[in-house]
């Protein structure tokens, strides 16, 4: 069995067709995901329009340093992902494996920073409920969306980390064809999760009116 044949899946007879349809499928899925996050952003925006002052005050209590650091980490991870994809295209197995590993590690770093941020938020009583720190009622809604949106994004990122680590592992063991469509599809998904964060960041962290 040649290497290309190893990457071929039912019901396809050519790897080119398979790659095309895999990408097409992922784009279609991303269209669906856009509506998923879009609904969350829409809900956030509606309540923000209803209670602008409370949302501005609440946004001032988010930790912009963590948020900005994570933005930088995630953008860098996407750079590593694209490098890995290019390396796979050029048949550079070890470089591709390295880039994917870096991508996964940066993804993990994002989650770790997020963890510290969550801990800070909990210490500052920013979890909606009885002993919530802020007075304005709608501030609780801001933080409901904050926890909801960032958690859903983190779940997406975790799935991405698993997919990328798996590919890196398979590359290192030499168990995957370099021409497998999985690289491109995974990179597309990773890019999407990154772009979602690019929307989350201004929505949540930059609305606080800091000068």
């Amino acid at each position, binding site marked *: 069995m040649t290497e290309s044949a190893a990457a071929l899946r039912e019901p396809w007879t050519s790897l080119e067709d398979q790659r095309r349809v895999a990408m097409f499928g992922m784009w279609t899925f991303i*269209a669906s995901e856009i509506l998923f996050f879009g609904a969350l952003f829409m809900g956030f925006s*509606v309540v923000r329009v209803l209670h602008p002052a409370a949302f501005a005050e609440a946004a001032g209590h988010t930790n912009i340093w963590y948020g900005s650091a994570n933005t930088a980490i995630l953008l860098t991870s996407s750079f590593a992902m694209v490098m890995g994809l290019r390396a796979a295209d050029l048949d550079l197995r070890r470089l591709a494996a390295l880039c994917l590993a870096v991508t996964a590690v940066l993804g993990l770093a994002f989650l770790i920073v997020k963890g510290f941020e969550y801990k800070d938020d909990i210490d500052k009583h920013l979890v*909606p409920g009885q002993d919530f720190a802020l007075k304005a009622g709608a501030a609780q809604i801001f933080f*409901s969306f904050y926890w909801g949106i960032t958690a859903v994004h983190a779940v997406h990122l975790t799935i991405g980390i698993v997919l990328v680590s798996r590919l890196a592992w398979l590359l290192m063991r030499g168990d995957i064809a370099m021409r497998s469509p999985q690289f491109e599809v995974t990179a597309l998904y990773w890019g999407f999760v990154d772009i979602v964060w690019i929307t989350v960041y201004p929505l949540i962290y930059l609305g606080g009116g800091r000068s």
Partner: protein
Amino acid sequence: MTDAIAADHPQGLARARDYLHAGSTLRSWLMSTDHKRIAILYGITITVFFLIGGAAITVVRLELVSPNGNFISDDTYNKLFTLHGVIMVWFFLIPSIPNTLGNFLVPLMIGAPDMAFPKLNLASWYINLAGGLFTLAALVAGGVDTGWTFYTPYSTMFSNGNVLLAAFGVFIAGFSSIASGVNFIATIHTLRIAGMGWMRLPLFVWSIYAVSLVMVLATPVLAVTMLLIVAERWFGLPIFDPAHGGDPLLFQHLFWFYSHPAVYIMILPAMGVVTELITCFARRAVFGYTFMVYAMVAIAFIGFFVWGHHMFVSGQSPYASLIFSFLSFVIAVPSAIKVFNWTATLYRGQISFEAPMLYGLGFVGLFTAGGLTGLFLASIPVDVHVHDTYFVVAHFHYIMVGGSVSAFFGGLHFWWPKITGKLYSETWARFAAILMFFGFNFTFFPQFILGYLGMPRRYHVYPPEFQIYHEMSTLGASVLAAAYLLPPVYLGWSMFRGTRAGDNPWGASGLEWQTSSPPPPRNFRSPPALPDTVYDYHAQGKAPAADQASPRRRDSEARQNVDAAR
């Protein structure tokens, strides 16, 4: 390639004479990536869910015979109609036609060996099953009393039912819809046989394509809505809570942004099925093919912009209501185009009344009645009067049961010979079709009157003057239940004792009829020949050709040919 297949399927799939004989172990079914077997798996689960949902509403209808309600408590009553709604909408109607008939037929109709992502196809069934089990668990663990709409703040702050599990089950099932939608879209885009352009796809395939777009773009919003309910109820995050400045209307907007397009998820595939039935049994090319396509795409598209007509009395802006009302009238136009085109297809056709055609014609009538009463509801003054009454219940059951379920049964009968390779008893099938039509109208027509007179939906007790209509409805429901129990009997019988079906018992024109019945594992032993036109029956304004005789004659001839070939 063939090595890989043989290695995956120890039973020797490549040599099997048809997909039903490609392995007989439970594992060969549960792990199969053959779209036909997955369709059967879906068929089994939706039948089970249909029976559960049907049983729940049977109790409700029996309870409504008397105005005061004697048998069950108010609480149980609420839980039963919620169970009926949740199960029927998400675990029967939504997957019914797309995931059984669509899964089975789309690759066959476009001359493909399988779906674009066979493993994803199997995964979607497991996801659907998992969602269904979560929802059933919610019912075993105490039930849910919110109605299928899960309106806040009741569902998040007050209901004692097991909303969490049910909402989570619906959330999970949504991903099954999205996976199926992605799969259908990719399949239809990339696996059409050479020469089959978009404007010669069978309209059933078009309907599945349109419905997949809705599934992919609407379902994620439902997923988010359910997630927010879980967040508010479980984690105590006040999202819709008015006490903190939250807006329960936001929930309704999000919910109906999915749940109105969901109506089109249920009806579009039914329209596709009925087009196949009517063309075949009128021996006519479909009237206005291009407009049938545009109409379906238009319905799928405009369907995204009418959700506010569920909220006319919710306190939303009157200007919003005005626009939603207008758009709801607009969406009636493509629907009406379809009805006119079906009737125009019948004109000067050689109509014969086999069981599938009876379902198809029943669909046209009932869909029209349901659609026209939808226009009543789209006009705000009438809606204010009949909002949340049995008028609404009757209206959407005309669309979902009279429309979708009729079409599902019609399609099931039409393609049964292809799916199982056996012919069922035509007499019984016609009897069941007529009984179903009769029982359906008997059940739901009185509800129009009931609602117009002011009987609110979801009420356990009611004033005695409404009793006669409730009794009629319950009596009709018993007839309907009997009619639903017939097909499993004679269809089941046909599997074991039925006559063998030919490849094309109806003399129909689709590619799926060119392969053997039941089809081999990879659908076609030799590539099918694409006919000159889609719906290759006799054209508009032309006299029927000699080979366009009634299906039954063609069938007997075909059978003689098969015998002669033996």
